[in-house]
């Protein structure tokens, strides 16, 4: 019998610890599919970050270096500059990438580091229990914005993909979601493009993936999925924001 659905080779068989309805598992799978698709498992080194995705190293059967909170782009720079023949990707959440690690991601992007970045935006600090993130939407209550995020107090949710797309060092920048089968297919394509960008040495390949966090949003999984469409996508529009074409090497 021909298998129609198998676990990507670069994933281990360890069950995900993620909460029901969380999108990290789906996104992990997309990344693993890309590793398999481009045949880079044996030369991949990932820099893991701090947050719910910290256990990435338990789920991927690849070499992984743990980074301090927000520093994965710097750690990955150190890995890639000393091992240009290796494939290096980082996987960061919104608190990690867009708050404590803002300097590291911007400058890694600006240097045009040949890295693939998977940025998971769920508008909340997940692992620490649902505090306000730099991407928390206006009006969204969290444990540290109990009356809802208010711009006079907390500023606006930060749009990283739009910002990074402005930098010359970025070869590919896109925002996708995985809340419907159609969007999942687009997300897969974007992750693949972010991989190709590195393989073609066109600078940073950056994918922001809107993700649900039912536990910290206080929603059931289906409600959480609907929130992505209803509240997140209007503020964080999906699409490819930057694509360096053809032979325009960096």
């Amino acid at each position, binding site marked *: 019998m021909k298998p129609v659905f198998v676990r990507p080779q670069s994933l*281990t068989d360890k069950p995900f610890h993620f909460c029901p309805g969380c999108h990290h598992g789906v996104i992990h799978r997309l990344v693993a599919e890309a590793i398999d698709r481009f045949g880079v*498992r*044996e*030369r*991949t*080194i990932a*820099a*893991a970050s701090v947050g719910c995705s*910290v256990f990435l*190293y338990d789920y*991927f*059967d*690849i*070499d*992984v*270096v*743990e*980074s*301090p909170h927000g*520093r994965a782009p*710097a*750690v*990955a*720079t*150190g*890995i*890639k*500059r*000393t*091992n240009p023949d*290796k*494939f290096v990707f980082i996987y960061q959440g919104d608190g990690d990438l867009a708050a404590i690690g803002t*300097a*590291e991601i*911007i*400058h890694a992007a600006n*240097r045009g580091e040949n890295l693939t970045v998977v940025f998971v935006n769920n508008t909340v600090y997940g692992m620490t229990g649902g505090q306000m993130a730099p991407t928390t939407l206006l009006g969204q209550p969290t444990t540290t914005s109990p009356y809802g995020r208010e711009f006079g107090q907390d500023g606006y949710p930060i749009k990283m993909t739009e910002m990074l797309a402005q930098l010359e060092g970025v070869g590919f920048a896109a925002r996708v979601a995985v809340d419907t089968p159609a969007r999942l297919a687009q997300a897969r394509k974007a992750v693949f493009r972010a991989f190709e960008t590195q393989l073609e040495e066109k600078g940073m390949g950056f994918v922001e993936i809107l993700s649900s966090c039912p536990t910290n949003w206080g929603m059931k999984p289906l409600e959480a999925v609907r929130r992505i469409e209803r509240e997140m996508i209007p503020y964080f529009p999906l699409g490819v924001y930057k694509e360096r074409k053809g032979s325009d090497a960096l």
Partner: protein
Amino acid sequence: MSESKVTFEKGNVALAKAAVAAGCRYYFGYPITPQSDIPEYLSGVLPRIGGQFVQAESEVASINMLLGAGATGKRAMTSSSSPGISLKQEGISYMAGSEIPAVIVNVQRSGPGLGGIAPSQGDYFQATRGGGHGDYRVIVLAPASVQEMYDLTVLAFELADAYRTPVMVLADAMIGMMKEPLEEWVPQNPEPAKDDWAATGAAGRPGRRIKSLYLGDGELAEHNWKLAQKYERIRREETRVQIELPEGCELAVVAFGSAARIAKSAVDRLNDEGRRVGYVRPITLWPFPEEAIRRVAEQGVPLLTVELNTGQMVEDVRLAVEGRAPVHFAGYPPGYLPSPDDIYDEIVRRLPAGKEAA
């Protein structure tokens, strides 16, 4: 030391040359006085010998680039000066926890805060107590000459690899900025293979984790004990100290780095004048040569600790002595670099009375 040549060199440049001689091809750093000769030198040399020089956006980024490079087993280095080293502590803690070898250079300036750019030894506590969060140590080497900037930097790379741990070269503005004759030599110890632990891509093997997070029941205690055992081994095998103890020693000066250099002139002069003054210079600040110092104290020799701060290493001296002999202190906080005469007077003041040479 088969091939060697003697040049007249600045301490910082000697250190940078040693890194290259030791096989370091990767440098990550951020400009700060008084160590900028190091990145300036390496930015010229490394790209021409197949290496990489990255000027990072911050000290925080540069230490984490070093972490990434070290995790793949490459010999790599960062350098900075006091305020910058404070920013690097996060990464140093992670490297100690993840057992990543790397060399970190601190050409000390003065603090606290922005302080100043004059020589100081105010970072002794920070360097020898680990510096960042958690229960760990960093091997700390304290050069007292331009030659030692070279020699101890080569050693730093060897120790970092041998024990898979970050190693700090703790210099200061005086040693870093002064020029002296330097004998450059080619290290003979080959760089050890790191295939058995480093992140190199999981070719033909399961993936590896270079990490410091341990959440399983009992795992972290086990990891901390494993580190502690490594530190114990380092204490046993890597403690280095220079001791010159004359027969019938009346008092011994304990000092490291540039303070030791100045104190040595005073000690030599007193001995020329017929006094019997000893000289104890810790070369490794961690591990601290406590046993050697205890043995001096057991002979009833009073000790005078001289530091370019208001009293840091003197605490380790007292811990080593444990009341066996008097421990005096002469401190020079930043802004005034003592002369040999100053230290001469401090020694004479503490010498037993009535024994002055004619």
